[in-house]
């Protein structure tokens, strides 16, 4: 077979030659290695576990979150990947492809979403196999589907090979083997469905397919060297519109270097023409900085001495109750908790406790129990601990003092203490509880910095704001409070967004106007009343300036038995749109919104929620959310909303969807804290399916002390 110099790289024999040379070099270099190195998977330019521009059939550690920025030849990809389960991973990507200099303009900003599933694990003989769908929603600039397989030839050398469709079938492609199943597989339709933002299932695995493959070699503990044969022809990037580079070769070479346990640097030489680089940051919710936290030791259990004389003589002492209560207040405050109220009888005590410090409700309960053994007279045998959140009694935990004394150092004290504890609804707890007056009729306030950002505006992919925030709360009585939040921006371009082109009521797309004019902004000022209605039922009333864009009234009722995985609630709101300056005025638009909601905590740490009702633009529909939750407070989830607003009316993106994260700050600092950073990533903000942001929704308030969440973190009872 005669091949000219140029044609050599484009022939299949080149692949075998290159691979052989690479393998010979690797094997001889391997023999020079003295100690075995652990193969570490690394990320590629697409922000997924892989080679350079191609995927491998490896998965990241379960629950690993990775953010990658990769760049070459006018293409920048910023990807967030999450290992949703040990086999399933998802990625959300925001990319920019430059236009050719003659064309000018801002280029193409694209959002893409991937899913990958590991079908088969690697064994001594068999390889691992992964099926992947790249850019499955929307315009499909990066759309590709693949089946890839990887195998370790030696512990440090992995070979990967696969077959790809779409983008990965564009170079040296051949007729789609799947057309044997159905003729329609032979061709791939172009274009995008409607307004984009939809799953383009009709294109998957259609059109030409092509082979790809590569090698990766773990040279040292930190350095991984890769080579690959890419089946991506980069047709778009090499078209006259973009004209970004010359594809001289299908071979890519590169490396990944671990700068630290959580940071890696990639450097590559691609397609015989371009250099590229990338940086990856990883984080794993299951690996905090300090496992167990560095919180101070609990009060040790004080066992009772053998009693002589009258065990209940203390009840006759006139100020006995006050002294005991003061001791409880003092010792609870020392451990970051507050005594709300206490009721004492000769043989039992009920304490209502506010947990200000610990993420796990079980830890607050355990510490309270130990404090009780230290303070309570010997005749008090029955402890009932009631965690109170926002004035609501969330659960009543019955413990026997003898069990606490017996189990403090028992090797399996975690599950034993849970088995002996009784959890029940707290609505009917002791009516004789005496309130701690210091907790109420007090103004609490805090001044601190705030950071805000909006994303994915093509004019400016990230807009930010930094400023100062005053938060204040006045607790009038248990469950009755007035709270507010004032922000003053010092820096930021967050108000510079485009004007809305929405054809329906602009209930959310005026965000840039609120951001621009709201300086200073009264982001919230509400009066709130929430309470236990009766066993299993909770209620809330809220009124005032509920959020940045709306004020009004909100009422909610929730049914949630302590032992139940299921909660059902209903909420109804009157929302009145506020002035853009986010001060005290209102505009004309107002609407009645409301939802019926079902919450379900699945057994495998997934949590689902369905809300059905009326949204801010007057549209009716449903929101479905699914989160992966961790016992330490991390949550990663996704949601989508479909309403009777047509995809056309909704506009670009077709329907509301997004990702949401809850990150506990103590993950990074080690010191116990209930602070969490919560944010939502929406590819697009439009006006359909928009829900009112009401503060103090009941389910979040009570769920942490119900059986499912308590049991999940009960390991911390003795912490």
């Amino acid at each position: 077979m005669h091949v000219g110099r140029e044609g050599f790289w484009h022939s299949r024999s080149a692949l075998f030659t290159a691979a052989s040379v690479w393998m010979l070099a690797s094997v001889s270099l391997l023999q020079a290695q003295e100690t075995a190195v652990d193969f570490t998977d690394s990320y590629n330019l697409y922000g997924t576990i892989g080679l350079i521009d191609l995927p491998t059939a490896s998965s990241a550690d379960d629950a690993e979150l990775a953010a990658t920025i990769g760049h070459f030849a006018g293409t920048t990809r910023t990807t967030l990947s999450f290992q949703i389960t040990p086999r399933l991973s998802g990625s959300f990507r925001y990319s920019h492809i430059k236009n050719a200099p003659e064309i000018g303009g801002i280029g193409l900003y694209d959002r893409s979403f991937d899913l990958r599933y590991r079908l088969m694990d690697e064994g001594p003989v068999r390889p691992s196999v992964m099926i992947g769908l790249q850019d499955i929603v929307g315009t499909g600039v990066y759309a590709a589907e693949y089946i890839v397989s990887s195998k370790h030839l030696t512990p440090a050398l992995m070979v990967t090979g696969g077959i790809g469709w779409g983008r990965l079938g564009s170079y040296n492609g051949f007729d789609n083997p799947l057309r044997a199943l159905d003729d329609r597989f032979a061709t791939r339709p172009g274009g995008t469905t409607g307004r984009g933002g939809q799953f383009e299932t009709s294109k998957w695995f259609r059109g030409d397919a092509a082979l790809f493959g590569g090698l990766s070699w773990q040279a040292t503990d930190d350095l991984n060297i890769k080579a690959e044969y890419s089946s991506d022809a980069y047709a778009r990037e090499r078209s006259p519109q973009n004209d970004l580079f010359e594809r001289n070769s299908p071979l890519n070479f590169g490396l990944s270097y671990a700068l630290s346990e959580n940071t890696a640097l990639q450097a590559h030489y691609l397609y015989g023409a371009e250099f590229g680089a990338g940086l990856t940051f990883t984080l794993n919710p299951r690996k905090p900085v300090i496992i167990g936290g560095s919180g101070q030791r609990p009060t040790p259990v004080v066992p009772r001495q053998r009693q002589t004389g009258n065990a209940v003589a203390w009840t006759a002492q006139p100020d006995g109750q006050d002294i005991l209560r003061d001791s409880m207040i003092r010792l609870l405050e020392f451990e970051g908790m507050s005594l709300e109220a206490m009721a004492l009888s000769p043989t039992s005590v009920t304490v209502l406790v506010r947990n200000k410090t610990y993420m796990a409700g079980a830890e607050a309960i355990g510490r309270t129990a130990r404090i009780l053994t230290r303070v309570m007279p010997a005749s008090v045998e029955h402890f009932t601990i009631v965690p109170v959140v926002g004035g609501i009694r969330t659960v009543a935990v019955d413990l026997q003092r003898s069990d606490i004394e017996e189990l403090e150092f028992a090797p399996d004290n975690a599950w034993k203490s849970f088995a002996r504890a009784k959890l029940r609804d707290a609505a009917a707890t002791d009516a004789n509880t005496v309130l701690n007056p210091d907790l109420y009729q007090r103004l609490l306030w805090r001044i601190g910095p705030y950071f805000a950002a909006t994303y994915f505006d093509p004019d400016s992919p990230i807009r930010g704001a930094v400023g100062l925030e005053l938060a204040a709360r006045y607790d009038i009585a248990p469950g009755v409070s007035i709270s507010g939040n004032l922000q003053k921006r010092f820096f930021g371009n967050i108000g510079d967004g485009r004007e809305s082109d929405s054809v329906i009521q602009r209930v959310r797309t005026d965000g840039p106007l609120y951001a621009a004019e709201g300086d200073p902004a009264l982001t919230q000022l509400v009066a709130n009343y929430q309470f236990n209605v009766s066993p299993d039922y909770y209620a809330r009333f809220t009124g005032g300036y509920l959020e940045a864009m709306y004020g009004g009234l909100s009422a909610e009722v929730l049914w949630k038995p302590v032992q139940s995985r299921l909660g059902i609630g209903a909420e109804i709101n009157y929302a009145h749109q506020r002035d853009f300056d986010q001060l005290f005025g209102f505009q004309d638009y107002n609407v009645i919104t409301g939802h019926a909601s079902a919450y379900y905590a699945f057994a495998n740490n997934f949590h689902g929620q369905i809300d059905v009702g009326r949204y801010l633009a007057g549209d009716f529909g449903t929101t479905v959310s699914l989160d992966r939750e961790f016992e330490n407070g991390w949550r990663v989830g996704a949601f989508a909303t479909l309403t009777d607003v047509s995809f056309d009316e909704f506009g670009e993106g077709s329907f509301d969807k997004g990702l949401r994260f809850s990150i506990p700050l103590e993950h990074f600092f080690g010191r116990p804290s209930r602070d969490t950073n919560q944010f939502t990533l929406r590819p697009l903000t439009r006006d359909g399916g928009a829900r009112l942001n009401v503060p103090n929704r009941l389910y979040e308030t009570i769920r942490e002390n119900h059986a499912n969440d308590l049991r999940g973190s009960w390991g911390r009872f003795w912490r």
Partner: protein
Amino acid sequence: MRLLDKRNLMFVAAVALSACGNMQGGGADIKQLSTVIFQDTPEVSVSAQELTRQLRQQATSQANAHFLVLDVPVFGVAAPFSLSGTNRDVDTYLTSSGVSVSLRNGLLVATRGLGFDLMTADVTETLVALGANEDRPVRIHRYLDGDNQIITNSFVCSLERPDVDVIIERCVSTYLAFENTYNFDMNGEIIASEQWVSPQIGMIGITMIN
């Protein structure tokens, strides 16, 4: 915009005021962030041996006070711990800085406040073995993992007596191994020891004073 213009100065002052107020929590906590960045580490001015010597001098005049000196090499810190109380056969010693250790007849069964703490340890077989010169006791340690679950490590141990008042306990599990050393007094009680806490903390030295 000059770096020191009025708006920038106001913001810097505002950040300096940050986390002011009597309400806990909410948003970015600059104080916590600065602690991580600037790594508040305690000053180590006294070694474990020096601390032991000082405390022994004081202890002779206070018959009822019970102390131990805990040496934690991984933090480079040694500190005195005082006896807080006894529950059944376990003594708990603690410091005002928020750390506690619990000992059962001199064997470590729990730590709190170090981070990567030993939650519980089942040392029943080890205690029997120490007394009766038997071999191959099994130890079970329990720890919290990053997701608040209790994980269990079982160790098979062997005892060796290189000297009349010293016992070395060597323990092995699938992935971990450690070696504890116990020094006894004439009454058969442990007066000094080096014991392993967890993979991250490693060994700690315990010296009983009084």
